[in-house]
């Protein structure tokens, strides 16, 4: 590995204390993110997948320092941003931006498109003439393929896809290097989804952007990401190159997740074996001992119930955390 990764997360932990009673003493922790490590190289996309409640959004928020992580380090261009004071981190805020899931809820309904973008552009409090601001707004609208004449419209006059484009334009307004995309397409229709994904890919190529792409849709993540990490109950259980996820999934959870996603090729679909997971994701309040997946895992052994397996490299950067890999890969499921 030659290049210095733009973002490096080491042993990130985010525990939310549970408070009960009159004095609000902490009686336990919700381990939303527990010992997560990964890195992203510049210009690449890192996909984070998992079911709701697995901690993928919390990880994103820790990277943005919206949350103060309980433990672990987040390096942005080699600098640890977890220990920085508010004033110190401010310049980095422009470099790391966020695209939200809900294009309806994340735009102020009382601000025009121009005003929404202007606010973001002038957030650094540098002086700009109104002509400069207008030029910049137009430039941003063009970048996300929105019509420049739309700038005096309001969010309610836009379709879902247009709003998401506006959300992207807003994120681009400070020329960021890293964008955390939190489920950016899951609220959209399939055809619009495709447009937004293509747009994100084009912008990445043109501007050399780096994405931390959080989504629950495996097919979308596989399409856009270079590396994929699968999360379960606050931990990464498998991490691999994007093209390997369909060809060589190893962790039983990844396999189950994959088999739950139907494929649109009728003939292939009819021949696939389906693994239907029993039960639901356990509450992170009382996460199971040992490997957190063991109550739903059909390969679980006594060992799994006691200790958490390490995320080990099994070759070519493919990392899996499972004790029974030979059994899993032998069985056809």
């Amino acid at each position, binding site marked *: 590995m030659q290049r210095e990764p733009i973002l490096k997360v080491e042993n990130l932990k985010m525990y939310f204390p549970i408070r009960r009673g009159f004095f609000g003493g902490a009686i336990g922790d919700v381990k939303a993110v527990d010992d997560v490590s990964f890195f992203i190289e510049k210009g690449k996309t890192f996909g984070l997948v998992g079911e709701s409640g697995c901690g993928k959004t919390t990880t994103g928020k820790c990277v943005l320092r919206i949350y103060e992580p309980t433990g672990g380090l987040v390096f942005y261009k080699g600098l640890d941003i977890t220990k920085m004071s508010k004033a110190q981190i401010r310049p980095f805020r422009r470099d790391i931006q966020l695209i939200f899931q809900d294009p309806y809820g994340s735009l102020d309904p009382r601000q025009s498109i121009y005003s929404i973008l202007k606010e973001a552009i002038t957030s650094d409090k540098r002086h700009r003439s109104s002509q400069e601001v207008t030029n910049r707004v137009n430039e941003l609208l063009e970048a996300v393929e929105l019509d420049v004449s739309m700038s005096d419209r309001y969010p309610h006059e836009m379709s879902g896809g247009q709003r998401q484009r506006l959300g992207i334009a807003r994120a681009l307004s400070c020329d960021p290097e890293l964008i955390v995309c939190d489920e950016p397409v899951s609220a959209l229709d399939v055809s619009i989804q*495709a447009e937004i994904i*293509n747009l994100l890919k084009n912008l990445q190529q043109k501007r050399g952007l780096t994405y931390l792409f959080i989504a629950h849709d495996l097919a979308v993540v596989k399409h856009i990401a270079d590396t994929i990490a699968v999360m379960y109950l606050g931990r990464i259980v498998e991490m691999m190159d994007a093209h390997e996820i369909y060809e060589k999934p190893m962790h039983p959870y990844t396999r189950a*997740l994959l088999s739950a996603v139907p*494929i649109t*090729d009728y*003939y*292939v679909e009819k021949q696939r074996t389906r693994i239907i997971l029993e039960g639901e994701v356990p509450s992170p309040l009382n996460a199971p001992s040992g490997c957190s997946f063991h109550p739903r895992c059909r390969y679980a052994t006594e060992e799994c119930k006691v200790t958490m397996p390490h995320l080990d490299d099994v070759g070519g950067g493919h990392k899996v955390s499972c004790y029974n890999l030979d059994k899993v890969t032998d069985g056809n499921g």
Partner: protein
Amino acid sequence: MEKKKLLEVKNLKTSFFTASGEVKAVDGISYYLNEQEIIAIVGESGCGKSVSQMSIIQLIQSPPGKILGGQVLFGGRNLLDFTPKSHEMRNIRGASIAMIFQEPMTSLNPVLTIGQQLTEVIMTHTKCSKKEAWEIGVESLEAVGIPDAEERMHNYPFQLSGGMCQRAMTATAIACRSKIIIADEPTTALDVTTQAQVMELLLSLVEKYKTSVIIVTHNLGLVTRYADRVYVMYAGKFVESGTTEDILMHSKHPYTLGLLDCVPKLDSKKEHDLMPIHGAPPRLDELPPGCAFALRCPYVYGKCWEEYPTLRQVGENEHCAACHLDVAVNKQ
């Protein structure tokens, strides 16, 4: 193998009369549902797929909505002969034809327990005492795979997860021995693994209770795995219909082809570019005289702008498409 038709909809038309004019949400659609069959109605949001199903059980708010014509034949009767509030319609709605809605959390009453809501439905549709209704409720919760059913009956919807709520909704359908379950985007708000669980449940009901299911969805993946036949809907009309195999592997209509090209594929080996369908669906209150898809269609030619293509047979097994062109030939 000849199957019995359970439900037949003929030329159904539903419009909404708004300040800006008539919105033709459903514009003359015909389809049928066999016994023990799963059919899917696919389309983008706003294409009228939900309204087409609400019309069957007359859940259209009037005004502004109105069912303008057509027939819904079920059990030898035309359901549109009854008024929405008639005794007959109420007996059918929720009992013979049950509906599962998109957002399980919001379609259950938050201030009543699951048990109260279940027994209410059961007592309305079957002549039984409260105690019997409670027992049937527990049984049907067990049938949909909810553990500790007895205890769950005392829970409020917020105490259950999304998947559990969706199961509870399905339980009401089982409790009344519904012949048809209409599932309107049953899995959209759920996680993939829960999605699979809910869909497998519906599939098992078809086998166990001989129910038929209509899935309304925009997710082509669900269709591939679970549906027997598919109707593709665009701007209030069906543009293609046929068996799942024909629709997915031998699609004839440019819209269906477009839908298939724009979803990211999990199984593709090479990197492929997604091909979005350009533009947006037309507004339903100002539909063009010709084909509604003409504006977005890559194969459009003169005739498309003037004349609406009727649904015509294009292949075996009742494979129909509404297009002037034989796209499959032109695609090469």
